[in-house]
């Protein structure tokens, strides 16, 4: 459950992040200002606040279609989008100028330069920071317990109220998170080895 939530939110967050990064690097002044404000604001407020805002707040203005799971995914996507836009922005800015010029020189249109030069390079540059963000997102799924989404931490809370075996339960849960994080880190490192840029 936790992994699925993280994966889904990361996917949506990636889209938001790429769009915001685009806006900040290539956008006109007003768009740039909006994207920067979004990034700075969201990065400086707690995730739990965003979760409550989406879960309790959006229902009131007529968005009743969100149950607790979807509001959590939306909140985590908004939160990760801000962090990812920072990651992608740094990546886009560090694509060597010469490559873009080379793209122009062989007659690629600006769109094709973007598609075949800038974006693939950006992905390979940001891969390490992307995997860090993904691991911390996975840990953040524990906050879904606050709005009763049935994931690992929530499961631990339920078992605790039933059995009162607090230490055993939390130790087990901690070990499960720890193992998952290490496995994730290992898998992502393999991916990095295959695709990341040697710099």
């Amino acid at each position, binding site marked *: 459950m936790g992994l699925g939530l993280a994966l889904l939110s990361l996917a949506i967050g990636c889209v938001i992040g790429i769009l915001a990064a685009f806006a900040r690097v290539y956008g006109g002044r007003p768009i740039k200002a909006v994207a920067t404000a979004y990034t*700075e*604001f969201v990065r*400086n*407020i*707690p*995730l*739990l*606040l965003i979760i*409550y*805002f989406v879960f*309790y*707040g959006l229902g*009131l*203005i007529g968005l009743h279609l969100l149950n607790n799971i979807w509001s959590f995914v939306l909140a985590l996507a908004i939160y990760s989008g801000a962090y990812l836009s920072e990651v992608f922005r740094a990546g886009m800015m560090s694509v060597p100028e010469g490559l873009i010029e080379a793209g122009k020189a062989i007659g690629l249109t600006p769109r094709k330069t973007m598609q075949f030069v800038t974006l693939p390079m950006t992905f390979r540059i940001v891969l390490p920071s992307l995997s860090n963000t993904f691991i911390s997102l996975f*840990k*953040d*799924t*524990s*906050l879904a*317990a*606050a709005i009763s989404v049935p994931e690992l*931490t929530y499961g*631990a*809370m339920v078992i*605790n109220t039933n059995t009162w075996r*607090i*230490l055993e339960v*939390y*130790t087990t*849960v*901690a070990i499960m*998170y*720890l193992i998952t*994080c*290490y496995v994730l880190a290992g898998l992502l490192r393999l991916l990095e080895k295959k695709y990341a840029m040697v710099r």
Partner: protein
Amino acid sequence: MLDLLLQNAHLIWRGLSVTLETSAWVIAAASVSGLFTGLALLYGPLPLRLLIRVYVDTVRGIPLLVLIFSVFYGLPAMGMQISAFVAAVLALSVFGTAHVSEVVRGAVDSIPDGQTEAAKAIGLTFYKRLRYVIFPQALARAIPPWTNTAVELVKASSLLALVSIIDLLYSTEQIAARTREPLLFYGVAAILYFSINYSLSLVGARVEKRFRYSS
């Protein structure tokens, strides 16, 4: 709307002061102990180094919420009676210490080896090397990630709402539930958190400028 806000202002203020107080304690405690664990990671004897490495990686590998729950519910289960506030500060400090020690280690590690070697060559003792050569340079590099950690800790203090400590988030939650104005009050809380953290970042940027060496 303004009436509602003014009526509840004192409750928000009380929550805000709890958030500020815990954050200040936690940042101070984590910075001091993180400095020592960071130095132990760098210069300690091997067994100590291993022990701290395990501690740092474990804490960074489990969600903070699990850590808070284990301290908050686990210590009393082991027979230790501590107040909610102390448990909260303890849990966050354990988390913060792990992060600060990585900041310290990273900053010192990023100083070129030549600096240490040069200091050795002119005959400085270990302490003098740290005091006059390594620390002044590492400080400037440590400040940006340290500021990030401080911002993370302020944000992390909001999780204490889940163990019923009436911080900014929890008092906002109570007011929002009572007045049925979640958008307004969560918006206010968001602006307050933002102002705390943004001013922290600004101060951090200023201090960094002050300590930066032209290198």
